[in-house]
């Protein structure tokens, strides 16, 4: 309610959300200590393994590190188009 009114009256969101978002990303990378290139490589290797078993929609793959209850969590969302017959 408050946030809604602020948006209506103020026209835009304050900068704190930006600060919070930037911090979350920063802290994950501080803790994980992987380069962007290493992250990309890990993504490709994981997706390659999944692709051996199911047909996936490459454009919809979402692969990211996040802060969870017990520290850093790796969250991967991989849309499956079709399960390969031979895998069943």
């Amino acid at each position, binding site marked *: 309610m*408050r*946030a809604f*009114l*602020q948006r209506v*009256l*103020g026209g835009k*969101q*304050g*900068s*704190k*959300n930006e*600060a*919070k978002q*930037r*911090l*979350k990303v*920063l*802290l994950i990378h*501080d*803790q994980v200590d992987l380069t962007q290139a290493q992250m990309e490589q890990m993504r490709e290797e994981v997706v390659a393994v999944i692709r051996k078993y199911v047909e996936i929609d490459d454009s919809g793959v979402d692969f990211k590190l996040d*802060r969870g209850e017990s520290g850093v969590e790796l969250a991967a969302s991989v849309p499956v188009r079709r399960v390969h017959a031979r895998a069943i």
Partner: protein
Amino acid sequence: MSECIVITSGKGGVGKTTTSANLAVSLALSGKTVVVVDADIGLRNLDVILGLENRIVYDLVQVIEGECKLKQALIRDKRVPGLYMLPAAQTRDKNAVSQDDMKRLVQDLKALHDYVIIDCPAGIEQGFKNSIAGADRAIIVTTPEVSAIRDADRIIGLVEAHELPEPDLIINRYRPGLVERGDMMNREDILEILAIPLIGIIPDHQDVIISSNRGCPAAFDENSVVGQAYRRVAARVQGHEVEIPSFETGNGLFNSFMKWMGLAPVREVV
């Protein structure tokens, strides 16, 4: 039983020394005996914040090197019974002291006083390691800014790696007006990220600058909002349950709107 508390932050300039001085004064005002130690060897500042810079004879390094007795180096603050300061050396570097030296020193100080407060230098190197070596618990000071919170997160990890219990957090330089208009992270935002217990919020206020000009910590002033905030921290340090107020200004957009509508301002939860 005596307790040694290290005040640390990682980032410089967030208010470690101001917090150390005010917490020490507040604890002394509540009847405890306290010694506050400047562990920032080579860049001492605590003496100036406390207004005791003209009374220094011996320093921490001289105590460790046996040039003087511990009690000779302690400067008694005459404004309140039971408050002492141990100054840092100004002309030496951080490597003049080892972690074992600090452990011994803290043990000796704990035998004399209820609380030993250590004002830790910025950074995560030797000075930091020395400062936490003899500590029983840590209080992390941060400001509601990305850089300070990032460093606080790093320090929390290091404190826990040194087998100290989970540290407590002080949010310093809090500006309720900015929080109300969404331009500063609020209490929940910061706690969501750092996930340690909050032990105090210190509002950003001119009292801090005025008191540092005068060498008289705000905690001495009963009417200062900053002094009051630090005295509440001191009560919580001693295990008393004291509410952390919200510091709302009542001038936020939402409150203005509610006033305009003829409704009472709603209490901002920060």
